[in-house]
């Protein structure tokens, strides 16, 4: 119960400080957007800050006509669709048996350890690469999906969710003659929709953001997913994917606005969905911090 409302300086300074902190987190993204929307001449001078100067959509028009960009976009869309579906399917079918008690599922401990060990010990880059090569997956979309098909973190989130589901529900289903598959499908999955939606979103974001596997498993740049493509254009400054006509146009647009436009487009889907990922943050966070 405060009697007089006097100005609290701590609150004022604290609010200003935190607003500045928040600004520091989003301004780089706004800067890149401002550059991408500026004319190439002014962008090259380095004077664009957080608002476009000499507004222009030339860089986006160029990107829109760029075949390599759209090819990689298609690969990325295929990847998130297939990868997301497989991740969720496997996470569900692994989490359900593991959510059973030991007396209901004799091999639970064995399976749990098999999955757990992969979290604390990995074979490393080279043996995995060799295996993908031996399996003939190089230059196919499966090289981007199968090695990470089992999302162990999602399994854990989901299995903890299944565990807190009231036992009476599944018991009554069994009384009615339902088997495990049916119980999973008509009781556990509908009840766990929020958790499943979350692991699906995490999986989609993960697949969208992956770039290294594309870089090493695809010999043909035409098979790159979008982030690998952006990596070669923006970071490696490799223009091998440019056609001669495109190279001519390139000469007239500053490299800077063009790169910025592609960076922004690569981030845009994430910016649209990430606020929805908050629900299971805390749980995922504790687990995520131990990723070996």
């Amino acid at each position, binding site marked *: 119960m405060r009697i007089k409302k006097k100005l609290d300086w701590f609150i004022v300074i604290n*609010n200003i400080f935190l607003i500045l902190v928040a600004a520091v987190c989003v301004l780089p993204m706004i800067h890149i957007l401002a550059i991408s929307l500026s004319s190439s001449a002014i962008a090259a001078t380095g004077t664009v800050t957080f608002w476009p100067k000499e507004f222009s959509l030339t860089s986006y028009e160029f990107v829109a006509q760029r075949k390599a960009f759209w090819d990689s976009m298609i690969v990325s869309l295929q990847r998130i669709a297939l990868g997301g579906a497989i991740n969720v399917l496997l996470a569900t079918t692994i989490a*359900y048996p593991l959510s059973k008690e030991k007396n209901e599922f004799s091999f639970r401990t064995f*399976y749990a350890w098999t999955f757990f060990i992969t979290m604390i010990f990995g074979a490393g880059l080279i043996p*995995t690469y060799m295996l993908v090569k031996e399996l003939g997956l190089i230059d196919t979309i499966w090289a981007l999906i199968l090695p990470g098909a089992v999302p162990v973190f999602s399994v854990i989130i989901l299995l903890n969710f299944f565990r807190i589901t009231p036992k009476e529900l599944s018991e009554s289903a069994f009384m009615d003659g339902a088997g495990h*598959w049916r119980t999973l499908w008509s009781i556990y999955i509908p009840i766990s929709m929020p958790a499943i939606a979350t692991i699906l979103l995490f999986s989609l974001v993960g697949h969208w953001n992956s*770039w290294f596997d594309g870089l090493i498993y695809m010999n043909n740049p035409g098979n790159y997913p979008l982030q690998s493509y952006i*990596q070669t254009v923006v*970071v490696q400054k490799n223009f091998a994917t440019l056609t001669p006509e495109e190279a001519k146009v390139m000469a007239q647009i500053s490299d800077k606005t063009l790169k910025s436009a592609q960076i922004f487009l690569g981030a845009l889907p994430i910016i649209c969905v990430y606020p929805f990922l908050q629900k299971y943050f805390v749980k995922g966070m504790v687990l995520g*911090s131990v990723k*070996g």
Partner: protein
Amino acid sequence: MIELNIKKLKKELPLNLMILPGFIFILIFSYVPMAGIIIAFQKFIPAKRLFGDQKWIGFDNFKYVMSLPNFDNILWNTFYIASMKVILGLVVPITIALLLNEMKHILLKRSIQTAIYLPHFLSWVVLGGIFIDMLSPTDGLINTFLNKLGLESIFFLGDNKWFPYTMIITDTWKEFGYGTIIYLAALTGINPNLYEAAQIDGANRWKQTIHISIPGIRMVIVLLMVLSLGNLLNAGFDQIFNMYSPMVYESGDILDTFVYRIGLLDAQFGVATAVGLFKSVIALILVSSSYYFAYRFADYRIF
């Protein structure tokens, strides 16, 4: 008795079938590569294929790596960058969470939270691209600003003096917002009566923080501190790979980037696997002890 077991197994058959596809995937894509670690002890010739008739050379690959003049440097860079990230990754989120917790304006608080965890979800390709542009010594935003203040341009990504700190700070920038959320969740769980009682006793904001807020989230802090032990060799491949260059190998080359270069670029598969194995074994020790301590001190269980 046996009959009973068969009956039980039969009853459990659907569960086994359900988990089977996932089990097979993990066997193929996690355990077969683990068997592939034998490459580390071979003079591996790719033409003879994985698990083929390769020449065994014992620990020669390891000896070769240890004898490289820059290996100590790489090891130090890895540990230094990773541990600085771990420390800042604890201190910054706790501080910001304590400050955010003092904020009374709910809408503003929520907007700030949403803003600060945006970078966590963006890839290092996107962020690397942005930072390469912003930190450019000629026309980057940061250096233009420094010049306006009358300071000299700094080549953040090309100067060995600056590179590791640039990595540590940009990584902290990317991840602190995400970390903040967990502490904030713990802070909101503290009983508000405690603060009221403290106010009646005349405790100011600082005293309340020291005596109520921090003890209230002590368990979470201990847990995350212990778990972050497992990251002491994760200096951040994605980040460094997208921002480094031969100019800064001296201060920025880490185990993972080294493995990539000697393995996939120079095709010295045996040596690269040996370095990878070296890292995996140390990581195994670190991660399992972190789990053990978390279990002992915070009753933390993953399954």
